């Protein structure tokens, strides 16, 4: 091989190597794009729900109340007959079997929706109104185009007759898409069209709030001690090693800790944001301490010495001068730690947050779910409607994380002083 050939070969190798590096970065970036695109394309339809416009006639004979009845009286009244009588008029069905199939196109909450309309204006007796009633999950998915209708009938959840009704609805413009308020307001449900993340949102909020209240002060105080006051001895060395190790312990181990100590020994209530918050706080603590210490360390010694020189005590120099300067870094580290805690699932599963909770928790000691656990729960469900609900929940979760990380970066860039 001549010199020139060898050189060419070496330069080719150089180019190849460079290409591998670039390609790896592109692969990683590509994956981010694919993941986000996949979730968005699956999930964005969940923010709308399919409704069927139906005429409802409030027949006084079927309802055993008078005009101007009180709220309680209406609440106790059975609207089932009114619902049936009106819904079967939505399409000219021939017999009972067809009527049953027709009724299945409406959600399980149709009766409640009718009752709510009546509650709003209780002078409706003997009158007719048009109402947008939520459609069942099957119709919802069909209308959104997520459901293949060209399958043979026995492999479909929707019968041929229901397809005929659906086409009739579409032709007469009786079916449309509305903003899906149920998705944000409702708790969990076995019916995808009624299931929402209201409970999970509140549960996550309480958990993260408790985590913040516990982890932030302790982490700041601990890092101040370790960085500013701790004498160099075996105890502080041991604490340091401990913190580094704790930050690397798999999160599921914290779940086991919570199960044994918080639930079995102290007997805090299962499945509650209280336990979740404490567990997440223990897990987040070392992850906050590490950036807190880094930002304390970044404050130059001249600041401390200046304060000491004018007669401040060690404490005053730290709390009046060092801590305020380190605060932006501390806060952004805390927010990033909380963002990690918000997405954490495994320990929450172990403390029983996978329980099926319909009610929206009203306090941190009520059983509840949380956003990531809700993702896990729904992803295990077979119904097609839950796929879009899961993806939409992930979209909500990711947008919270993006906002939190954005705040963290902003805090650091805006307020952190650069020392040179």
């Amino acid at each position, binding site marked *: 091989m001549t010199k020139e050939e060898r050189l060419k070969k070496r330069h080719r190798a150089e180019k190849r190597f460079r290409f591998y590096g670039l390609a790896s970065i592109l692969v990683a970036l590509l994956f981010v794009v694919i*993941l986000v695109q996949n979730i968005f394309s699956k999930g964005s339809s969940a923010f709308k729900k399919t409704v069927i416009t139906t005429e409802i006639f409030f027949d006084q004979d079927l309802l055993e109340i008078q005009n101007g009845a009180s709220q309680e009286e209406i609440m106790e009244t059975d609207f089932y007959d009114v619902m049936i009588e009106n819904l079967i008029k939505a399409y000219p069905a021939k017999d009972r079997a067809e009527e049953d199939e027709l009724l299945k196109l409406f959600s399980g909450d149709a009766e409640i929706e009718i009752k709510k309309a009546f509650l709003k204006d209780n002078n409706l007796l003997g009158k007719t109104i048009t109402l947008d009633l939520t459609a069942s999950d099957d119709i919802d998915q069909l209308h959104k185009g997520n459901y293949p209708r060209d399958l043979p009938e026995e492999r479909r959840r929707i019968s041929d007759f229901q397809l005929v009704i659906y086409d009739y609805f579409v032709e007469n413009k009786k079916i449309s898409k509305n903003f899906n308020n149920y998705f944000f307001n409702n708790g969990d449900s076995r019916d995808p069209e009624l299931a929402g993340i209201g409970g999970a949102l509140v549960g996550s909020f309480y958990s993260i709030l408790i985590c913040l209240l516990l982890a932030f002060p302790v982490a700041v105080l601990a890092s101040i001690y370790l960085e500013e*006051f701790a004498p160099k001895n075996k105890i502080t060395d041991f604490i340091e090693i401990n913190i580094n190790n704790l930050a690397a312990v798999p999160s599921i181990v914290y779940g086991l800790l919570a199960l044994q100590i918080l639930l079995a020994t*102290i007997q805090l209530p299962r499945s509650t944001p209280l336990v979740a918050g404490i567990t997440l706080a223990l897990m987040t603590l070392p992850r906050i301490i590490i950036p807190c210490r880094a930002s304390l360390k970044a404050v130059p010694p001249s600041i401390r010495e200046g304060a000491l020189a004018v007669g401040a005590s060690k404490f005053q120099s730290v709390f009046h001068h060092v801590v305020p300067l380190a605060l932006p870094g501390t806060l952004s580290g805390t927010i990033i730690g909380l963002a990690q805690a918000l997405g954490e699932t495994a320990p929450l599963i172990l403390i029983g947050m996978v329980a099926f909770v319909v009610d929206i928790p009203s306090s941190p000691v009520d059983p509840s779910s949380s956003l990531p656990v809700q993702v896990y729960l729904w992803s295990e469900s077979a119904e097609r409607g839950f796929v879009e609900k899961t993806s939409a929940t992930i979209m909500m979760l990711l947008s919270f994380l993006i906002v939190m990380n954005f705040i963290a970066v902003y805090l650091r860039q805006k307020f952190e002083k650069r020392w040179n």
Partner: protein
Amino acid sequence: MNIVLIFLITIFSISLFFYGKSKTKTISIKDNIKLNALPKFYGYYLVLWCSIPALVFLLVWSLFEPVIIKSIIIETAANQGATFNDKNEANLIYEKIKAIHLGTYFGDIDSILKESALAYAKFINLFTNSKVVLIFGIIIASVVYSLKKIKNNNKARDDVEVILKGLLFVSSLIAILTTLGIIFSLLFESIKFFSVINIFDYLFGTNWSPQRAFVRDASSITVAELEELKDAFGFIPLIAGTSFIAFIAMLVAVPIGLFSGIYMAEYASIKVRRISKPIIEILAGIPTVVYGFFAALTVGPFFRQVGENFGLTVSSESALAAGLIMGIMIIPYVSSLSDDVINSVPQSLRDGSYAVGATKSETIKQVVIPAALPGIIGSVLLAVSRAIGETMIVVMAAGLAANLTINPLESTTTITTQIVMILVGDQEFDSPKTQSAFALGLTLFIATLVLNYIAQRAVKKYREKYD
């Protein structure tokens, strides 16, 4: 009750603050003595003495009160003639008694329950009263003590700082307490587990089927059942599955992560680096449950489809899908750390290599990487420890059955998956099945600890070499 107490303590502390501040001021003016600290420090001093002992007492009391009352009530119920065979039934009776007391129980109430509920009410009353009395006693004692100190014109600033420093120290101890909590809670159940199942049967058994251990109480296991259980808790398939999936993940993460790290450290312009580094780090910020969902619903079925086209049977919960996605999650751990490590290789080494005519890639391959190797190995080990501790991806995308296989298209299970599967939903405490989850947790804890220790040592040694 607790909230009222905390409120009272707060109010009391705040008023003491103003009392201490003005009192010392008037003393200093009236008696014309120089105070040893600013008046507000005397206020702080009183606040700390008034609140901390009382609050600590309240916390400790609240932690232990329910447990103690429960054991007393279960005992009285037993004395009344209630019968229960194990802990679960005892708990059930206790819950009933509590519900009767609160008026939320609507079942039949027999005389035993009624008596116990009365006893429960009595004890609750007794405990609450003594709590209030004790707390006020503590507050009065500590306030009297601190007022006396103030009258003697103590060095309040120094004293306040000593107390606060103690508080700071206690906060930093929480890390140690957490570690101790983890170790004890894992050891406690694991020891019970290993008293039933031989540790060697666990470590070297090749069959994992804990659902066979459907025994309610570990203490009532017969010899025949024990024989049966002996080979139900074999750890080998789990560690094999875990390592296998972690291995696939590393096959993805190490090349991509390392090459990205090298490119960012050596080739990329500042602009490219500033954009691409945070985007790659997004991969580490995405919750693992999202990866799990993606792996289970998109990647798994996709692989099965592709496999079918080639005439292969691919399980929809294949080790390949879980490993691949886990690998992608881990990329930033490898890339960021190796980027840092490569950046800290001194420029003089590179310059020397360029001086003898090496190209950039030759320099990287023959000089920079060998120099950075301990650090790179450390970062890979950290990534491995992430991979074996990762839970949600494998729970959602890998299988549940413990197969001993090296076919990436079949499903396998991992340690973390089994912990979740055993502990999800209702568990019976004291069954070997539940305890086995803690034994698995202990194994996982030790494994990640060892890996992290080695990795940190490697990175530290390497740093020392060039600092």
